[in-house]
């Protein structure tokens, strides 16, 4: 197999980077300007020309409305999501609603989808590597934050396709960083990757040994990153300015763009100096045509105070991740810092304090992710490569069951490829079809999770509820593709889907579907106690009602026959009331009595028969 070149692209929120493995050595490819990273910015100039990277950044101040930055924050997200709502306020460019509850960006009256915008950046990275290599490049490994869901990953893949790239794999940024860290070193240890980038925070725990990189656990926050730190500085500046002049700078898009630039610059400077001067002359003019200037000092202490809760949040996520993975802090032998934000002394200090060891200084926080992507590209296509990445699925996968609950089949942090199956039953008597809604997420409520796809299994035998068994099987392939199969165990009837694209359903729509499709639902042992109790009670009620006539006949002769039937009726009534009242404790008590009565009823019936 003639080894085709595979580039690794770190498609970042603020900057992107491309790398390749040549003759077994990974290296970053510099762009035309000699820079190793390229701003993830796209703009449409006045003449309609598309500008990408450094050029786009340079004109951003004068063309703020038509310059897109941080598109990664919007990729694969739904219009109705909180993440998009908050972006609407802070982005100087126009964000509009797309036809599939997705997000579109308006630049000079032209509407672009977010994957399109990302594709322009990827195309630029492709061009940079083609110029460097002197040949066409088609294959790429692209990195995404570990906590990206399937929709965001799929959208990133789509962006690659639009850019003319064959995206052979999407891998997680912290994992890529670990690959670059462990590449060519014969190490055997547990490491933590703390990745605080422009827009996202990720933490991953990996076990490295014998060229194998096993992801043990990964978690993060897709809305916590350098941009949030910038915003804290902007808010502080705006607040101070408003107090002084009574003018809200945020209303002026040009001013906002300048504030953003100066905030980022100040933040970076404060990583090496203790204080910095912020100077924005002629930031805005008053109604009386009088120009105002913004001039102030920002100290490192002030910055740390403004952002202390953000740093604290990352530490909390680290603690939770370790706990979930059942790993003690002292088992971590090295901490790798990734992302520009980890240059901030307070972040480094927080990391060192939490893990109790000095973070590894051997990797370059801006380049390590792209290098890792290139290494994974080589691991897949180069026979000589001795590296294997054992990746995990970052979110749980499952289906919606009756009551609108989410039943997990594959837990998060399961090594892929993997498959899991579970048997479900019908909810109603004579139910002939079930709808399988494939969901991803961690919430118990179906509508709080991401819908990946849906299909209907029809032709079930008409039978009492709970009798028809349907096996649902999930499979995630090594490249993260999810397929789901539902099978009627009785007839062998099968339906399946491969989850490819995201359907743009909103939470509301899912809620509506829950209501509309009650007859389609499947049932399972759910963790939701009341629900479980109610179903149990309903089943018992049905049976006990059917036994009443027989039992009444059988015990009518005995002294206490009438009494017993009356008692049983009372128990049935109590259960019904508890169901209506939706009170778990009363229901549990009532069900207990109900089942006792039911058992006795059964006994009576079997005695009369025998």
């Amino acid at each position, binding site marked *: *197999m003639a080894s085709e070149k595979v580039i690794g692209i770190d498609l970042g929120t603020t900057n992107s980077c491309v790398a390749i493995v040549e003759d077994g050595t990974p290296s970053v490819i510099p762009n035309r300007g000699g820079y190793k990273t390229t701003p993830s910015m796209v703009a449409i100039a006045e003449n309609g020309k598309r500008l990408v990277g450094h050029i786009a950044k340079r004109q951003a101040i004068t063309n703020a409305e038509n310059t897109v930055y941080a598109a990664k924050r919007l990729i694969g997200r739904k219009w109705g999501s909180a993440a998009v709502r908050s972006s609407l306020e802070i982005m100087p460019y126009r964000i509009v609603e797309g036809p599939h509850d997705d997000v579109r960006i308006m630049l000079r009256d032209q509407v672009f989808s977010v994957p399109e915008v990302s594709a322009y950046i990827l195309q630029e990275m492709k061009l940079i590597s083609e110029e460097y290599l002197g040949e066409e490049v088609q294959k790429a490994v692209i990195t995404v934050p570990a906590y990206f869901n399937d929709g965001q990953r799929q959208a990133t893949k789509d962006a690659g396709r639009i850019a003319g790239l064959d995206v052979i794999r999407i891998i997680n940024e912290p994992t890529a960083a670990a690959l670059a860290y462990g590449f060519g070193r014969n190490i055997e240890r547990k490491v933590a990757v703390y990745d605080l980038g422009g827009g996202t925070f990720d933490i991953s725990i990996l*076990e490295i*040994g*014998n*060229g*194998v990189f*096993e992801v043990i656990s990964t978690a993060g926050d897709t809305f916590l990153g350098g941009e949030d730190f910038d915003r804290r500085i902007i808010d502080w500046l705006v607040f101070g300015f408003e107090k002084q002049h009574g003018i809200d700078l945020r209303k002026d898009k040009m001013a906002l763009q300048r504030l953003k630039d100066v905030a980022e610059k100040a933040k970076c400077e404060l990583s090496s100096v203790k204080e910095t001067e912020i100077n924005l002359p002629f930031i805005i003019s008053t109604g009386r045509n009088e120009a105002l200037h913004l001039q102030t000092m920002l100290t490192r202490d002030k910055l740390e105070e403004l952002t202390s809760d953000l740093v604290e949040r990352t530490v909390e996520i680290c603690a939770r991740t370790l706990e979930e993975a*059942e790993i003690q802090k002292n088992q971590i032998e090295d901490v790798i810092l990734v992302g520009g934000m980890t240059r901030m002394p307070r972040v480094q200090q927080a990391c060192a304090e939490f893990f109790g060891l000095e973070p590894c200084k051997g990797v370059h926080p801006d380049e390590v992710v792209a290098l890792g992507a290139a290494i994974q590209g080589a*691991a*897949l*296509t180069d026979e*000589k490569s*001795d590296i*294997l*990445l*054992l990746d995990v699925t970052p979110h749980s996968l499952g289906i919606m069951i009756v009551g609108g609950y989410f039943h997990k089949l594959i*837990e998060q942090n*399961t*090594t892929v*490829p*993997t*498959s899991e199956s579970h048997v479900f039953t019908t909810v109603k008597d004579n139910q002939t079809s079930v709808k399988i809604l494939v969901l991803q997420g961690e919430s118990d409520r179906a509508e709080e999770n991401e819908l990946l796809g849906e299909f209907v299994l029809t032709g079930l035998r008409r039978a009492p509820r709970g009798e028809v068994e349907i096996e649902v099987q999930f499979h995630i*392939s*090594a490249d993260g593709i999810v397929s789901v199969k539902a099978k009627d165990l009785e007839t062998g009837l099968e339906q399946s889907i491969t989850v490819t694209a995201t359907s743009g359903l909103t939470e509301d729509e899912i809620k509506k579907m829950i209501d509309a499709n009650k007859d389609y639902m499947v049932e399972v042992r759910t963790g939701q106690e009341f629900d479980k109790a109610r179903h149990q009670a309903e089943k018992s009620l049905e049976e006990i009602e059917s036994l009443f006539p027989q039992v009444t006949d059988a*015990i009518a002769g*005995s*002294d*206490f*026959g009438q*009494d*017993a039937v009356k*008692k*049983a009726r*009372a*128990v049935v009534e109590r259960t019904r009331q508890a169901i209506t009242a939706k009170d778990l404790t009363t229901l549990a008590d009532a069900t*207990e*009595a109900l*089942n*006792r*009565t039911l*058992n*006795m009823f*059964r*006994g*009576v019936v*079997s*005695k009369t028969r025998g």
Partner: protein
Amino acid sequence: MSSVPSEIVGLGSSSMKLRVSPGFDPLKAQVGPDEYFVLSRIDGTQSIREILLATGLPVDRGIAIVTKLRSIGALLLPGETAAPTPMSVPARGTGPRPNSTTPVAPLTPPHGVPSPVAEQMGRAPTVRVTPHEMPAVLPPRTITPHLPVTGRTPMRPGTGERPTVPRTMTPHLPMDAKRPAPPSRPPADPPTQPRTQLGTHPAAGMRPPAPESVDPPTVRRASTAELHLMLPQPTAEEKSALAEPGDLDADERVRILVMARLVDERDPWALLGVPTGSDAKVLKRAYFTLSKEIHPDRHYGKQLGTFADRLSVVFEAVSRAYARLTSPAKDQRSGAYPMVQTEQPQTPGEYAGELFQRACGLEVGGDALGAMKLFAAAVRIDPQTRYLRRAATCALAAEQPKTALEYAKKAQAQAPNDPSSARLLALAFIAVGRYGDAEEVLVMAMALKSENDVLGAELRNDLAEVRRLLSSSSG
């Protein structure tokens, strides 16, 4: 008689003074009389030359014996504290063996390789391996799926008769370049071939170990006869899988098929190819090594045919087995897999029975609280109705009404037709003050009970009592 050479191949200078390894047990090693005789001469003060001359054996024979004793870990060189590491013989199954008439390269079992020295002496060809020389990851119950084709070693029972691989078999061992080879090969036998043409285990060496193999690919093809030894009685599906076009070579296919036979997960240890009860480190090494062979990513871009699915299935099973063995807390089904192999003298049921008997003894002796504890333990292990009823009665006597109610409920649920269980439950309800429930249970129990015997009378009395309690508590 020739004189003793100054340099002995594989040992060193003949003027060296050897000592007997303190941990060496000649009985376990089954050395012969002349070997033991030589061993008994070695005292740490005489040189090899002196000993050889003192024994009176032919010099060649003497050297052979000393070499053998050294190779089985009996002798220490000056300055050594631990028994010697076995000589650097190639990993199992390599190189042509002297005197071998086998037409194909010999496939040797992991335990006990015939020693040419022993053969010369006409001894049994098996040499025991001292414990510290055992490969760290060698399963204790390993049966190699294939043995030398020559008739000298008995065939594994069942080979060729059973279509499936025996459960105890471990068809693969994690590759470990540093793993010591069986120490029976004389040092004079140099590794003539760097690698075997075929791993001795079906799943071993699917990929040449890092960095890369020097073998041309053609050398690694297995003969038809060998395939059948590793994959006894292949099914039609397996045969067609072996014959289909694709990029995997024959031995890679066989290994995957052998592992696919093991994925039913009944023995995760066997699937990972480690001894039962291995620690986390051994498990991890085995998992990583196996993953490097069978993870679909390691075969990315190849034409795999039906093996694409097989690789995925096998890897998934291996990864699940690893997950279960390393974090059993997360797996509810882990109870099926013993974490450590324990010699259990009795079944849980038997143990519960024993606890129950002891509890009854205490109860009779008047120690209701002590009896309670034992009943509770018995019920936890084996919640059968008899134990539950007795435990409930005991709890009532020990004035632990809540516990009594818990057990009585379970007992009644298990025997809903039994009025005496119902009565016990009613008494427990009375004890916790739930008179309404008690009345209900008693009424039902009476309805159940047609004959009017002692129990019937008791039920009536209880019911009257409950009704009295009910009216007084409401009044």
